[in-house]
């Protein structure tokens, strides 16, 4: 019993040590930023049939998350640069509040994008569903090439899904080209990175990508 307990103690110490080392590296070095840059694909800006802005999150009161805003702004910028005639905005609601796609569409209109150039979908709940629903949404327009806007860590999972749906995908990361320099922002970046890696792993195991 004592041997088992001692082994358990040693294992816990090792896990604790690894945890502290990972925490310190994540908080005090730019490792997460470097990994994110390594994972992210470079922006491939070319005239396309549509711009697709993937959903982020929205609060029940209708406030877009920072990531959702970044993606929306990037999509609007691409449209205003004349890279595609259609802007597809995605995202449902949280707790019965306004939908993310509608809030984003309102922002796009404020930037002068005509309503008939905006398509929205509020029903897709996962990246996989987004690919399927965007395919159905763009089918009547015979869109083949899309500029896919999402954060860099999400692209390795999102791009193959849209390629499977039949699109030629041009990746456009929404991340700002600024290295986070505070421990809190570095930890937040590590969290997003870990989440995206796990999501990618799950999609691979499930055979979605």
């Amino acid at each position, binding site marked *: 019993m004592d041997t088992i307990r001692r082994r358990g103690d040693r294992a816990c110490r090792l896990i604790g*040590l690894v945890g502290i080392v990972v925490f310190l590296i994540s908080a*005090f070095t730019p490792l997460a930023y470097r990994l994110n840059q390594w994972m992210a694909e470079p922006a491939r800006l070319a005239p396309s049939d549509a711009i697709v802005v993937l959903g982020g999150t929205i609060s029940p009161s209708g406030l877009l998350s920072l990531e959702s805003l970044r993606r929306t702004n990037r999509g609007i910028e691409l449209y205003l640069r004349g890279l595609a005639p259609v802007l597809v905005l995605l995202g449902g609601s949280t707790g019965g509040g306004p939908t993310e796609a509608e809030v984003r569409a309102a922002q796009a209109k404020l930037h002068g994008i005509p309503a008939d150039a905006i398509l929205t979908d509020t029903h897709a709940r996962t990246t996989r569903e987004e690919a399927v629903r965007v395919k159905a949404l763009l089918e009547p327009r015979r869109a083949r090439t899309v500029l896919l806007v999402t954060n860099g860590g999400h692209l390795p999972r999102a791009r193959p899904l849209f390629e499977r749906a039949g699109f030629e995908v041009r990746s456009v990361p929404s991340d700002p080209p600024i290295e986070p320099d505070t421990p809190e922002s570095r930890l937040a970046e590590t969290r997003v990175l870990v989440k995206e890696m796990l999501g990618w792993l799950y999609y691979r195991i499930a055979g979605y990508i």
Partner: protein
Amino acid sequence: MEATFIAALAGLTSIGAYYVGARALGLSSAGLAAAVGTMLESIGVVLIFLAVNLMTSVLIVLAVRSSTGTFVSAYATDDVVWLGLSMIQGLAFQAWRKSAAEG
């Protein structure tokens, strides 16, 4: 700059704590190594609870999705509160283990 300030401040308060412990409270320096070991053990237990909590919540989300067809967002598992709850669970469990070992 902020990171350097935080690291320097944490270093400073650690040195201060060592000084208080060694000089004012008369704690032995040799005991510090054992204390660090205990601290690592406790953090290890907290991390184990965190991993178990997160894995269990993901499995429950996937099970509910597949068995009932109801969509439950996996983002329910992505909440910083898990860290606090795991800390409470882990520290309580570690204290329990230690009291059993001593008793």
